[in-house]
């Protein structure tokens, strides 16, 4: 069951096509990655979901209903271009931003205090924003995005500008929010965080969606019949008709072999063959990293 769905969304600007029939389905309570090179159209798609701009054609549905302005209260959006009023005090500002999402003053206040305490930023309440570092400001923006407990959270490049410690805190909070029932979309260039967090992805390149699906499935599809075998101690394996040895590494009394099987070869036959050669510690399909997939897909698309 998907929470959010876009269907054939098209957005044409005067001099270029920003989105060309982009469809995606974001499952409930998933973490959904929106990937793609700079200028591919990710931000435009996110702005359409947030009704900042309207699509020329195509639909966006939330919970099966066509999305409307009333839904904005159940969406939290952290844009890529984000800032705060520099001269305003932190607490006042957080209160203002969350009140615009429809929270009552009292409710907003008590939730803000909870979050500020949790993220250890309660001491900044009466400081002006201009006195804070960029990382501190990011934390405040994060809090104001999630405070109204939206069922859909959209982060555009959430980790840019964060140091590793704050990135870790932020990731933990995102996972925690998902656990509590939120669905999360985030756009990023950071493939490491995609590996770590995303269940599903859509890859947009040059205005088109060119890859969509669950991370596990995509990896399997792109696995290309490669396996990693680890032996205890020494093992000598050579290329035969069933498989080709790509790489052999030895360390700590272990031998790791990357092999690529031929199209017709049965996996079971190969496993049997391996156990004959030595003491097998593990036998795994060698899944490509999202980074590799990203580069390969985008480059293949370029050549089309």
């Amino acid at each position: 069951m998907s929470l959010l769905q876009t269907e054939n969304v098209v957005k044409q600007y005067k001099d270029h096509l920003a989105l060309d029939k982009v469809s995606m389905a974001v499952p409930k309570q998933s973490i959904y990655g929106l990937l793609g090179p700079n200028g591919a159209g990710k931000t435009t798609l996110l702005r359409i979901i947030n009704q900042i701009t309207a699509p020329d054609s195509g639909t966006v549905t939330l919970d099966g209903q066509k999305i409307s302005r009333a839904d904005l209260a159940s969406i939290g959006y952290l844009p890529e271009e984000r800032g705060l009023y520099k001269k305003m005090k932190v607490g006042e500002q957080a209160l203002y931003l969350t009140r615009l999402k429809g929270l009552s003053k009292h409710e907003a206040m008590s939730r803000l205090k909870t979050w500020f305490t949790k993220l250890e930023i309660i001491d900044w309440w009466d400081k002006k924003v201009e006195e804070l570092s960029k990382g501190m400001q990011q934390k405040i923006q994060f809090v104001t995005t999630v405070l109204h407990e939206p069922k859909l959270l959209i982060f555009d490049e959430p980790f840019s500008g964060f140091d590793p410690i704050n990135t870790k805190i932020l990731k933990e909070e995102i996972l925690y929010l998902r656990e509590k029932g939120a669905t999360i979309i985030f756009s990023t260039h950071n493939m490491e965080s995609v590996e770590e967090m995303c269940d599903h992805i859509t890859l947009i390149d040059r205005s088109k969606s060119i890859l969509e699906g669950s991370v596990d499935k995509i990896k399997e599809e792109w696995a290309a019949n490669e396996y990693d075998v680890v032996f205890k101690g020494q093992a000598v394996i050579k290329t035969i008709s069933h498989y080709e040895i790509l790489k052999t590494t030895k360390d700590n009394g272990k031998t790791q072999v990357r092999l690529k099987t031929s199209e017709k070869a049965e996996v079971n036959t190969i496993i049997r063959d391996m156990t004959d050669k030595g003491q097998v510690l593990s036998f795994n399909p060698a899944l490509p990293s999202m980074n590799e997939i990203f580069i390969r897909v985008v480059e293949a698309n370029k050549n089309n």
Partner: protein
Amino acid sequence: MANVSTIIKREYSTRVKKKSFIIMTILTPVIFVALFLIPALIMGNQDKEFKKIAVVEDGSDLFDGVIKDREDVDFEYLKGADVNQMKTTFEEAGYYGVLFISPVVTNVPQAVQLISKKQPPMDLLNYIERTLEQDIENKKLLAYDIENLDDILKSVQTDVSVQTIRIDDSGETKETNTGVSMALAYIGALLMYMIVLLFGVQVMRGVFEEKNSRIVEVIISSVRPVELMMGKIIGIALVGLTQFSIWIILSFGILTIVQSKVLPDDPQVISEQISQSVMNQVPAVENTGVVDQTVELTAQEKEFAKIFNNLMNVNWPLLITSFFFYFIFGYLLYASVFAAIGSAVDTDSDTQQFMFPIMLPIILGLFVAIGTMENPESSLSFWFSMIPFTSPIVMMARIPFEVPTWEIALSVAILIATFIGFVSLASKIYRVGILMYGKKVTYKEMWKWIRYKG
């Protein structure tokens, strides 16, 4: 709508709490009052100590006792005294100065000298000049040896003051005063000009700040861009109204206090100033010509009564209502254009190229308004009071001279229609502009934005 009011509240409270706002709000009336009062104080507090002046003539004694003693000055006529000697000794003899009159004075105006150590006050010099002039005139007339001269002079003396009376269509007559109308026209037009400029520019800065600090996208993911824009425009309008109200109240307050505390030494001056305070334009300076006060007082009082009467004759409800309407819609019209500019530009310096075309009608409006005071019925004034971008300023200058109601109604209607049109154009530019970074904006570009969909 709840969102708009939240936005208005923020725009209002952050601005009103600013130090610069508080300082400006308090300081401006102080400066304003100071501009009025300092010249008056300087004149009022000038050298009032008692002086003795020796009057010396060269050879003749035409002017013995001619110059009468004044409250603070005694004139002692020293018959046959030598000027050159007096020049060196007058101070020891206790004189403030020596007034030397040469007999050629009847023909040569420069033949009178006042020799003193200090710079003598202006009104003392005026007093001496006037007295001598009058005396010499009298002497010359006497030389013609005309019979019944005094009676002739009395019957010849004439005083003309043109009363302007306007007759309206129903035949009712009304006494008017061009001076009062002009003052009101000037104040109305200038206020309108200041409001539009001061607060319009604030709207532009506010929009620019939101774009520049990148907070705008966060906000428009909760509210419509047009709501944010209107919230800001209305919030700043309220700031403006607050500031103006405080200015007016403070100015009157300070004026009243200063009048009663600082100038209590001359009760006559004060009583006059109070009767004048209705019309602050008449500077207190005039009253320090103490000499003729007793003679002129009644004439002055008459003049004040006339001004007061004319002030009562002004159609205040119309004037105030019109001011209110022109303020609201004139400001809204300009503020929406300023908001569009603030949203379109990337840097402060880019604003310049777009500022010029807006400043043009504002300044033009002020010039036409000033021309209107000279010639309120000209067709130039009429047309500029209809054109929406100049009408708030020009019409405010016309109303004190009485304008047919239909003209005001038409002008306001055109203004409102234009405002509605411009707000929708401006909000379209605004909507695209606030999210557009790093692009040099041109008019052509903005025209494209207007035609973007949703």
